């Protein structure tokens, strides 16, 4: 085995990793190296191949070609347990935790028998580590009782217990409040100072420039560039990620809105799911011609609120929801749509569209006006309408007869947004409008939303992306644990304050005590 001097310095070095999936070359000859203690960002748009690459390192995916050199020696990582034996730890984007087990049981599952024997008292060790790194978490608590931020700490502790030498974090900050992000960075810097290498996947460029020493940018499965983020600006990195200079969203004008068109009054709703969130006294007014943004970390009641407003959750009673002074609490989703409401749910496949049905059929699902004569469907008209949406929103697909499930997430999102906006609703409720959508398409969705607003529609925007909310929303608030914060004009607040609200600072202590 040839060992050159530069590979021996590296903690890990990837050489020419290639992975082919049916119909897509996910990784094309990727080479990458990390020094001990280096914080290295892996950047790229959705589908650029970041996830495939880190899964290769962690042994979840086996590469078609290429080698992995770990501490100067070539290794074959066949499974995650191989990776852990080497000292590689990974924090997944969708946490790999078991909700009905305790923190300490979750961590135990990840350890090999040998490691378990070496650790005499696991709960004690967890307590010590959490103290040493400021990752406050009680080993005896059940996961389902933990907040998202706490769950992430459990994932990180799980890696630390195994004295990790390379920590991979897949979009760690997308689920955190700004304050939690700051805490996470303190931990990461501490680990880095102790010699642990960190591979950090993110979409958020300002975070990358803040914490990472090096960055590798992927596009279409290839390495486009490697740079030092501290010497670059977020916009120059964005340019490398997207390829051409995408039009930057340059702050849009804010509107006041006219009369109140939609109201929620004392909306209380107990949870249906064991791990759901109860809605507690939600009150808000939505005016015609404004965009109201609701921020919040996932799982704080957004899904429940969306389901209650759209009519999917049919347990509402009278005097809770009003559309144009009409009590719509007891109307079902279809009846609410007929009154001019439209809805883009978070879950695209399954809620927003039926996976097995074509785009044409999916068009008909939420809109039948004009397509039906004498009780029969005029398929030609539906088809033309679907085609129009596809053209207008540049949906990449084989045509209007493609199954919804054959589209990539971002393209399906564009289609659903187009379908709902095309109905000229008077109230549009919309979750994560540009989730997984590339920069160019996001811009066109933003403009469509603003146009709809300017035409007098009321838009309720629920998103985890604070930057997007600040860009689009005229007024903004946050949900935390089923409570809705006060609403404030976007111009009169800042990310700091909304971040505090997302963490629940607006909830009176008397209420918190009763929980």
């Amino acid at each position: 085995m040839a060992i050159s001097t530069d590979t021996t310095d590296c903690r890990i070095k990837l050489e020419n990793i290639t992975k082919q999936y049916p119909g897509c070359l996910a990784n094309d000859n990727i080479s990458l190296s990390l020094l001990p203690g280096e914080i290295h960002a892996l950047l790229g748009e959705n589908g650029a191949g970041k996830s495939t690459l880190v899964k290769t390192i962690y042994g979840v995916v086996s590469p078609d070609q290429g080698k992995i050199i770990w501490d100067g020696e070539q290794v074959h990582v066949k499974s995650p347990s191989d990776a852990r034996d080497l000292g590689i730890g990974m924090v997944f984007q969708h946490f790999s935790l078991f909700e009905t087990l305790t923190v300490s049981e979750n961590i135990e599952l990840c350890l090999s028998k040998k490691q378990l024997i070496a650790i005499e008292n696991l709960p004690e060790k967890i307590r010590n580590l959490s103290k040493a790194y400021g990752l406050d978490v009680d080993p005896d608590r059940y996961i389902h009782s933990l907040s998202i931020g706490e769950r992430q700490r459990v994932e990180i502790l799980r890696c630390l217990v195994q004295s990790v030498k390379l920590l991979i974090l897949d979009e760690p900050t997308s689920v955190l409040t700004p304050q939690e992000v700051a805490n996470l960075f303190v931990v990461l810097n501490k680990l880095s100072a102790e010699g642990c290498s960190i591979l950090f996947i993110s979409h958020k460029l300002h975070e990358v420039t803040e914490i990472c020493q090096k960055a590798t940018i992927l596009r279409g499965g290839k390495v486009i560039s490697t740079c030092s983020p501290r010497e670059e600006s977020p916009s120059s990195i964005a340019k490398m990620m997207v390829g051409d200079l995408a039009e930057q969203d340059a702050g849009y004008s804010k509107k006041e809105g006219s009369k109140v068109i939609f109201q929620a009054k004392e909306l209380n709703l107990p949870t249906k799911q064991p791990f759901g969130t109860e809605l507690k006294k939600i009150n808000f007014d939505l005016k015609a011609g404004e965009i109201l943004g609701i921020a919040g970390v996932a799982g704080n009641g957004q899904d429940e609120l969306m389901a209650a407003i759209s009519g999917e959750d049919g347990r509402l009673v009278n005097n809770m929801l009003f559309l144009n002074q009409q009590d719509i609490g007891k109307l079902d989703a279809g009846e609410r749509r007929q009154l001019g409401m439209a809805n883009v749910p978070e879950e695209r496949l399954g809620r927003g569209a039926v996976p097995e049905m074509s785009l044409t059929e999916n068009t008909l699902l939420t809109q039948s006006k004009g397509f039906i004569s004498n009780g029969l469907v005029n398929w030609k008209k539906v088809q033309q309408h679907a085609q129009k949406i596809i053209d207008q929103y540049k949906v990449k697909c084989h045509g209007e007869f493609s199954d919804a499930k054959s589209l990539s997430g971002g393209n399906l999102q564009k289609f659903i947004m187009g379908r709902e906006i095309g109905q000229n609703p008077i109230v549009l409720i919309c979750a994560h409008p540009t989730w997984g959508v590339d920069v160019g398409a996001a811009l066109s969705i933003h403009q469509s939303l603003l146009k709809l607003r300017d035409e007098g529609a009321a838009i309720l925007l629920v998103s985890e992306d604070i930057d997007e909310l600040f860009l689009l929303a005229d007024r903004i608030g946050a949900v935390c644990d089923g409570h809705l914060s006060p609403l404030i004009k976007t111009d009169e607040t800042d990310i700091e304050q909304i971040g505090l609200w997302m963490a629940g600072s607006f909830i009176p202590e008397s209420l918190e005590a009763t929980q």
Partner: protein
Amino acid sequence: MDAELLSQILFSAIKTGTPLLLIALGEVICEKSGVLNLGQEGMMLMGAVVGFLAAYSSGSVGLGVLGAIIIGMFMSLIFAFLVLHLGANQVATGLALTIFGTGLSAFVGSDVVGQTIQGFQPIIIPVLSDIPFIGRILFTHDLLVYVSFALAALVSYVATKTRIGLIIKAVGENPHAANAIGIKVLKVRYLAIMFGGGMAGLSGAYMSLVYTPMWIENMTSGRGWIALALVVFASWRVGRIMLGAYLFGLASIMHLVLQGMGWSISPNLLAMLPYVATVVVMVIISADHFKEKLLAPRSLGKPFDPRQMA
């Protein structure tokens, strides 16, 4: 009612509840790993007929038990291959397995219907069986009842105290996460299903070698189904499964007891008591939907395909 009669009733309740306990112990492990196997009745019948045939032809009840366990595992292996490897629907496959087992057992056993053999004999444990009242109820049974006590303790210990139990629970809770941390989900589920199959076979052998030492077509009379309800009733906890099995055992012998006491209720009406009890229990449990969801393995009945993890 005097103590003598009461101890006799409780003794019989344990004896009647034992096949339910055995099969439910297998099913609870299977369900904890996230697999719902509705083929219990079919596997149990196959266990009963093969156990009887093996014992009848060899003259050894031990070989009968062994044969029953092996055929139960083999039947469950068919199920496991279909649902784990080929991704077939668990409910449909389980139902098919029951129909298949019912028919095949009737066919295989057609020559020996009504034949009898010398089944397991009671083993009266010295000293312990002399304890007043309790000794008679607990320590004058046959070998398989003592085995069922031991298995209940073992399953309970493994499920709640060991790493294996933790892994099974993790797989049933979130197979994708389990796969991501390197647990071999399909292997765990294969083993859990086969344990369930072996227990169903053993339970069948209890029917044809101990309870009524003979083979009659469809002799398990729905016990496989009652066991499925029992697992839910017990909210996947072994202690409660044991209690539930004996309660159902008690319900099954109520008609004999009441007849013995001279009550004139139609025996047919009373014989349906365990089935009515099953329906009532399911209704009560399902009424509290919230709680059921919290206790059930969260991925129960959902297929898992590691190849889709791209």
